[in-house]
């Protein structure tokens, strides 16, 4: 194996192998990434950089390596979405209301990573409380996609809500990053930044210490440059956690071990309902290519039907805001977070702290959620939406009688311009049309880069698996990765900026 010449071009797995083989020290690696992060500030990918902490952790890792006590991710610098609480390090959830919040505790997922030896470079920018599909709702400003269209200087969005993580991975600012996905927030930004992102089965990664958006949908997952890296990182993010009642008691397999097993005999379902109206031809062609690639490697292609697909997005926009309206009630200016100045009474304190602390999209969703749960509307909205979820889940159960995984587009299009879709909320919501069904059903889904548009922007394909069958998803995604041969990289325009 020949290693890249630049340390920041290493994949996570390559860096692991090099560090463990003592070809590279964690300090060298970390120093390179700390510099890359600092150089890439025009991307606004990070809310908080933690260079001192990173170097401290790197040095400690090098000591362990020297003592032959290297752990699986020893000395590997990662970026953490700012939704994961990190002890002693500011955690904002992209919101003004948590602008100065320093958690006295660590999320289980990030703790798992530190326990595996990883190094923290900083906290990545995101849509406020993970509500958004373009990273434009962050209180700390939009993140720019490292990718730009051919012959264009226009800034594009990196997708959302894990846009900072996606940009950091795509721009080689870290070896890999964590993301969270409530309606597509890992897969959609991964697809539009040419990176790999997997939303694991609900219950695979602990939600403990992750700022909640919609509890029944939220799930953490890795964002990486390769499928192998995703398999490696998920192995160490996932755990069975006694601190999360919805964490499922199934051991975490070694995904990397079966990564190259191939897709011979794998039954790949093609859901006809994903052929939506006005689907851009480029997306349609990419999907077709994906089918051919898998077929060529021995998979069996099966037509399946998921009849309630078109209802997934409106269902999501009832369930997620309802849960969010309740989850975000704790941001009241009493125990932590922003408090309005000079409140005249407690109600005034609540109303102004929350109005000042939450951005427009968050407030909109709180209002939607409050409305659909309020008396007289619960049955018409929330209860109906939860019934739709039952039907959506049944669709998948039926489909999986005929196939092992599903192949679909990941997004309805490539990255779009900053500010282009902020006027109409519904138009923005439609970016998650292919990803959101998976969250509603609690299933795993992976986005894998599959090609470029005519003007040079990345596009991804999505594979959807059975519950807790991430191993099969990684195998199939690896097959697409091999066939697609996606090696394009964005030009590092931000260095000149």
């Amino acid at each position: 194996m020949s290693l890249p010449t630049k340390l920041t071009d290493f994949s996570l797995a390559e860096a692991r192998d090099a560090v463990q083989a003592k070809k590279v020290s964690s300090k060298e690696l970390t120093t390179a990434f700390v510099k890359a992060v600092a150089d890439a500030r025009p991307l606004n990918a990070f809310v908080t950089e933690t260079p001192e902490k990173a170097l401290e952790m790197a040095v400690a890792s090098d000591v362990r390596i020297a003592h032959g006590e290297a752990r699986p991710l020893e000395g590997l610098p990662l970026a953490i979405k700012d939704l994961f609480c990190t002890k002693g390090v500011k955690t904002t959830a992209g919101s003004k209301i948590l602008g100065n919040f320093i958690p006295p505790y660590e999320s289980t997922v990030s703790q798992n990573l530190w326990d595996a030896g990883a190094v923290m470079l900083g906290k990545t920018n995101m849509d406020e409380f993970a509500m958004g599909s373009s990273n434009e709702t962050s209180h700390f400003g939009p993140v720019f996609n490292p990718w730009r269209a051919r012959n264009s200087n226009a800034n594009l969005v990196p997708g959302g809500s894990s846009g900072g993580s996606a940009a950091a991975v795509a721009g080689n600012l870290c070896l890999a990053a964590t993301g969270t996905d409530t309606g597509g927030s890992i897969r959609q930004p991964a697809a539009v930044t040419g990176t790999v992102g997997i939303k694991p089965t609900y219950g695979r990664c602990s939600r403990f210490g992750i700022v909640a958006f919609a509890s029944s949908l939220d799930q953490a997952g890795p964002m990486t440059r390769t499928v192998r890296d995703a398999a490696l990182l998920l192995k160490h993010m996932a755990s069975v956690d006694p601190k999360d009642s919805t964490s499922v008691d199934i051991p975490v397999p070694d995904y990397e071990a079966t990564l190259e097993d191939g897709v011979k005999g794998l039954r790949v379902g093609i859901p006809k309902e994903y052929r939506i109206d006005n689907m851009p031809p480029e997306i349609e062609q990419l999907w077709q290519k994906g089918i051919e690639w898998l077929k060529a490697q021995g998979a069996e292609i099966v037509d399946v039907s998921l009849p309630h697909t078109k209802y997934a997005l409106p269902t999501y926009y009832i369930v997620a805001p309802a849960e969010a309206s309740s989850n975000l009630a704790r941001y009241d200016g009493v125990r932590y977070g922003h408090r309005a100045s000079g409140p005249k009474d407690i109600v005034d304190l609540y109303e102004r702290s929350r109005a000042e602390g939450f951005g427009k999209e968050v407030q909109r969703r709180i209002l939607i959620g409050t409305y659909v749960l309020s008396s007289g509307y619960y049955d018409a909205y929330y209860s109906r939406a939860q019934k739709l979820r039952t039907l959506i889940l049944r669709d998948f159960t039926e489909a999986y009688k005929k196939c092992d995984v599903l192949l679909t587009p990941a997004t309805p299009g490539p990255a779009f311009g900053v500010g282009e879709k902020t006027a109409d909320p519904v138009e923005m919501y439609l970016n998650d049309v292919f990803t959101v069904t998976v969250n509603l059903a609690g299933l795993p889904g992976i986005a894998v880069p599959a090609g470029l548009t005519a003007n040079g922007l990345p596009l991804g394909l999505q594979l959807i698996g059975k519950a807790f069958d991430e191993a099969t998803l990684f195998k199939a995604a690896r097959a697409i990765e091999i066939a697609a041969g996606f090696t394009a990289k964005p030009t590092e325009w931000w260095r000149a900026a």
Partner: protein
Amino acid sequence: MTERTVKLLKGQTGDWEIVIGMEVHAQILSNSKLFSGAATAFGASPNSQVSFIDAGMPGMLPVINKWCVEQAVRTGLGLKAQINLTSVFDRKNYFYPDLPQGYQISQYKSPIVGEGEILLDMNDGSTIPVGIERLHMEQDAGKSVHDQSPDSSFVDLNRSGVALMEIVSKPHMRSSEEAAAFLKKLRAILRYLGTCDGNMDEGSMRADVNVSVCKAGGYDKFRATGDFKHLGTRCEIKNVNSMRFVAQAVEYEARRQIDVIEDGGTIRQETRLFDSKAGETRSMRSKEDAHDYRYFPDPDLLPLVLDQAWVDGIKASLPELPDEKKTRLTKAGLSAYDASVLVAEKESADYFEAMMASGADAKAAANWLNNEYFGRLNKAGLAIADGPVSAGANAAIVKMVAANTISGKIAKDLLDIVWSEGGDPEAIVEARGLKQVTDTGAIEKVVDDVIAANPDKVEEVKAKPKLASWFVGQVMKASGGKANPGAVNAILKQKLNLPD
């Protein structure tokens, strides 16, 4: 149902009935909170028993305490109630400074315990059945302190997340006495079960009392149809923290409602506060804006599913409860009244049972406790646990009376000695020569002395046989209370030639 006389309240327009339902919040006795590992001890310094979960910190998640679930089931079984093998935790959403999450985790549509029943023990020895609607588990809120500063409230979250059982009765109570009896009986059952310490001063048990009034006959129409409209509009009186206050609050509130209606007004369904100093209820201003709690199942928790076998195991381990104990004691010869007095408090029942275990006769022990020992405790303001005489000592005294070793009079003196000086009753009797004299020769001698010393009285008694009791008194006195009264009577009768 047994006939019961229902107390009617007189109004200007006729007779009124009171209808009462109760919601009791009982703190589950546990080491840690319902959804966190923070401690629950009473009286800790502010915010020293608060996990990040209880404080509603970002990203914190609830994990349920198995012990608390078990106690809720145990209580449900003690209330002869239906145990629901599947129940669901919901979020009740509202903003309040002592509610850190912005919602209370409670059970709304699917509680862990369904319908049950408890029997009220009334002072006349009768019992009245009162239906239990449900029991659900929920988190307690924190505490706001309002009197530390003129313009601020101080929030302490030590109570936040403590496990509560909310026990809801049906509107089956008809008087302030019944309302107080309900709280008393419920408290006794909880304490027998050990699921709640029933300590109302520390807030381990708090009652919300729903009161309405209706014209005479309205309640029967409700029972016949199940239609609540016959009961009138109810007001909820929050956090009434003693049996006495419950009775006072009901009396006041019923009269207030009658006056309002008879003055041509209408009762507004509202939450009221009982001011124990003024003995009044008053409207709670802050709770006035219409609530919309937006209940929905808590997505951080899965439905709570129990195994029947687990429930059966808890059932098998239940202690004997007041009603069963009362039945057993009446079978052992106690009157219904004595039995219900003894079983009303777990401590008195335990004390009594300890006396029985030491060999005291049930009826004699009950009389002794109710007539002698408990009276002394009451007078001294002592709880049973703090009383100076052990159950074994009291049993020894009762047994000595039964065996004619000492007289009833000496028994009382002996109790006073043990009370103030301690010691073993039998040893005291021995050492101080308190044994009853049954030797007829000795008694005869005393009788002869008394007769010899009082010739005039001997003449009188011939005409007035009732005077014999004067002789009995003299003989007893001369014997230092130790003579057997039966023997004294028989000998006197014979020596004075008295008729049978």
